């Protein structure tokens, strides 16, 4: 069911993909700051910042062919979303779980070979 996209599309898409690759370290750093802020002081603002980065990574990574990043991001997205929607409270137990899952996710991203 594939479609032959024109040359112009291919070059523009290549540029967007390169932009994504270039921005990834910055996104990881932003995410790390936001999650650490949340773990130290779980405010609505800190969780919103973290969620935005994770959610963006989840969608765009898949589109650029990095479905494993997308999958991992989606998993972490599901862990922090309840805090954003306030269906989960940042209790001590929950914070420990977020920290543990975040360390796994961060390590995956940092060691990922693009």
């Amino acid at each position, binding site marked *: *069911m594939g479609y032959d996209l024109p040359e112009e*599309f291919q070059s*523009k*898409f290549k540029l967007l993909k390169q932009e994504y690759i270039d921005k990834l370290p910055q996104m990881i750093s932003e995410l790390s700051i936001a999650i650490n802020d949340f773990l130290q002081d779980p405010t609505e603002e800190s969780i919103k910042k973290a969620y935005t980065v994770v959610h963006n990574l989840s969608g765009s990574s898949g*589109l650029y062919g990095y479905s494993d990043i997308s999958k991992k991001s989606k998993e972490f997205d599901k862990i922090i979303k309840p805090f*954003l929607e306030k269906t989960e409270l940042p209790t001590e137990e929950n914070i420990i779980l977020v920290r543990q899952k975040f360390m796994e996710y961060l390590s995956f991203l940092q060691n990922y070979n693009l």
Partner: protein
Amino acid sequence: MIIKPKVMIVDDEENVREVLKMITSALNFDVIAEISNGNEAVKVFREVKPDILFLDINMPFMYGDEVLEEIKNEIEATCVIMLTAFSDVDDVKKCIKLGATYFIRKDTSVPKIAGIVKETWQKFNDKHKGKSQKPDLHGLIQEVENDRLLNKYFKKE
């Protein structure tokens, strides 16, 4: 004169919207609205009445299925294509029951997305010209169930 189908894109991620705009332009469709959240999507949908609506399922604050629930009685002339991530199986099924025409996983390759969009629109358009039968809802739900990778991931959770 060829009338281009009017497209509305609803996704909170700018990257996704940009790539979809590029795909639809390559297919010679006309993007008339680009929206980043569900609340605004309902309002704009009613204003512009697009021929094709791309609707992301997982958006913060208002999900795509909630948007669809709001407009389900107004989408007869709109080809609704849901955009999904890995684990939205139940949401996809719900959206199809609410009247969505098809679904696309975001990790699908771009040429394949373009192919799916082109074919889905052609089938939808033919149906509206009375050329084909009613959509096979059961078949479509079965297709969601059979999405091997999607199910594999889902079972792990």
